[in-house]
């Protein structure tokens, strides 16, 4: 995305596009303690957090799901940026953000709803989460729902571990899962 294009003209257009409510998704890439995160926000709320962004691929995916008017714009992402920074600095335990999970399939949405109730510093298991959705044998489906969680960190799939206490897997890599659990004091 390097360009000699005048940045004042560029930023002015991006801000106007967002201010006029013309975007399906506004996104920005945030530099954080756990590496760059691509964050997408629709007019319904935060809809996407990508670890290890590859903007070209990620933008295509956002456009397929939410509509083609996907544009980098920092203002709509400001609130998410602030809360993520606070959380990663250990100064925030609960996110106060609207979330957009419109396009998540029904069962996965129920799983994410239960996941959202797993508090800061706690952990749960795939089986326990499956039981909360009324389907104790659906641990594998819960695993899939975690794997496809569009909003990791804020929807805290890092708090879900194996029945034997092992960290199992994480879309952002096990290092990051460990980092987040350590940050929250869930592991030492």
């Amino acid at each position, binding site marked *: 995305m390097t*360009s000699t294009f005048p940045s004042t*003209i560029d930023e002015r257009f991006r801000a106007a596009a967002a201010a006029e409510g013309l975007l399906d998704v506004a*996104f920005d890439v945030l530099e954080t303690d756990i590496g760059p995160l691509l964050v997408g926000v629709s007019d319904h709320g935060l809809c996407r957090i990508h670890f290890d962004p590859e903007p070209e691929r990620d933008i295509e995916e956002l456009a397929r799901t939410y509509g083609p008017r996907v544009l980098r714009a920092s203002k709509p992402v400001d609130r998410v940026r602030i809360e993520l920074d606070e959380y990663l600095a250990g100064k925030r335990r609960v996110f106060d953000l609207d979330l957009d999970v419109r396009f998540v399939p029904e069962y996965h949405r129920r799983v994410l709803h239960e996941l959202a109730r797993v508090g800061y510093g706690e952990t749960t298991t795939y089986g326990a989460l499956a039981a909360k959705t009324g389907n104790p044998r659906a641990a594998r489906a819960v695993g899939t729902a975690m794997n496809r969680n569009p909003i990791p960190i804020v929807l805290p799939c890092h708090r879900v571990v194996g029945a034997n206490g092992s960290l199992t897997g994480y879309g952002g890599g096990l290092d990051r899962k460990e980092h987040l659990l350590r940050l929250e004091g869930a592991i030492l």
Partner: protein
Amino acid sequence: MAVAVPPFETFYEAHRDEVLRFLGRRLGRQRAEDAFQDTFLRALRAYDRLEHGEHLRAWVLTIASRIVIDAGRRQRPQGEMPELVTEDGRPAFEELAPLTDGLPPKERAAVVLRYGYDLEYEEIGDALGSTESAARQAASAGVRRLRKEQQQ
């Protein structure tokens, strides 16, 4: 199969330099900045109604040309320009656009930019990513095709 509409970010990054250069040539640097924003906002408003991602470059440059015309009108003190016909009797875009619906995209763009917007062939060549003489040929081929259609 039709080319899918790319994400707006991709479209914008691909064409912003050229649109700004084009507007700069027509309006000067100062006024080009406002026109640039108007052009891409207008494109963005129409973007989710596009059915395919072909000829996006000609499309956005056509929008830019139109913004140039509008900016020219705003500059006139009385602002009493007739809506559909320009001063020299050439039909403006609103009148020309439906007539040219059936033309191949390149010929259509050349005809509209030449006779609707009164651009020079050199500028049309720029807008379409070809040359002055190719633009001249596309416009005259378009006009010939329109005449033939009218006779039928």
